[in-house]
């Protein structure tokens, strides 16, 4: 084999190995939508919300509260403002406030809802990931222009 053929052969091997490495890296990288998974702190700092995936959709439940005890009852806070009377005994810690989000594209999740336990209202919602540790969560009624955006930060656990 002359030198020219050897170089060509080496190039082909490099391309194949490079492609194989890319495949391996892609197999272990989280799907784009799954970058939303984790625990996030709301803008007010009052709650930590764990976002998980069930089926193909994303849901978020409260897993941490800055003030877990209701001073009025001296017991763990419950969802006392829920419009459904039967839900008013459900503990806030564990309550699923983000529901039914699907990954769209460009770091955006839509078709979901966000529940505000402070007033018992549910809003349509979209989530935009600004960077790996920052989310803009917009809740709105009707059209997106009529709404409010809250910025959430990824919580660093174990600190």
């Amino acid at each position, binding site marked *: 084999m002359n030198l020219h053929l050897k170089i060509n052969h080496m190039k082909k091997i490099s391309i194949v190995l490079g492609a194989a490495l890319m495949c391996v890296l892609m197999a272990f990288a989280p799907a784009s939508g799954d970058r939303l998974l984790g625990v996030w702190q709301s803008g007010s700092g009052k709650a930590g919300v764990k976002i998980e995936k069930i*089926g193909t959709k994303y849901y978020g*439940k409260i*897993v941490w509260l800055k003030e877990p005890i209701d001073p009025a009852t001296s017991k*763990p806070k419950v969802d006392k403002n829920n419009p*459904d009377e039967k839900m008013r005994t459900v503990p806030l810690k*564990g309550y699923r406030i983000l*529901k*039914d989000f699907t990954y769209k594209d460009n770091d955006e999740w839509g078709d979901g809802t966000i529940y505000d336990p402070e007033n018992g209202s549910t809003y349509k919602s979209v989530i935009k990931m600004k960077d790996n540790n920052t989310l803009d969560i917009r809740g709105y009624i009707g059209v997106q222009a009529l709404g409010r955006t809250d910025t959430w930060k990824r919580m660093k656990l174990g600190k």
Partner: protein
Amino acid sequence: MLFGACGKQTKDNITLDITFKSDGPFFEASPESLQHQLSEELAAFMKQHQATEANIEAVKLISASFTTADSAGFADFSSLTLNMMAGGDSKAKEIAVQNPLPKGKTFTAQPAGKADLSAHFKNKEKFLVCDLTPKADREKPFEIKAKLTFEFTFKD
């Protein structure tokens, strides 16, 4: 003049025996979700009614009872919420709630609201999700057997 005739409706109940399992550990700081994906459980019932998903008019949960063989019963947990989730346009719904949980090994939960679950049962991808709030950290696995009765309304 009104055109079209009202289709015939049929109502029937089905009781599903669902097992929720978690290998643990449970952390007090993090409520746990135990999932079960419904797949073949409804096949015989649908066949009996010669129905497809398109024939489902309405579905509601009419009773929900829960049992555990765990030696401590439900004493390690403070509350349970049962949710139904599905793909497509259907929205997640809380369908049964119990807070506080009794100390024994069995209880009947209050169905939450009068949610129509037809959109969920029409979907190929559907989940029952059981949220448990632990009272303290727990290493051992936990298993719950749920007996859920749904009322189906079929249309021709």
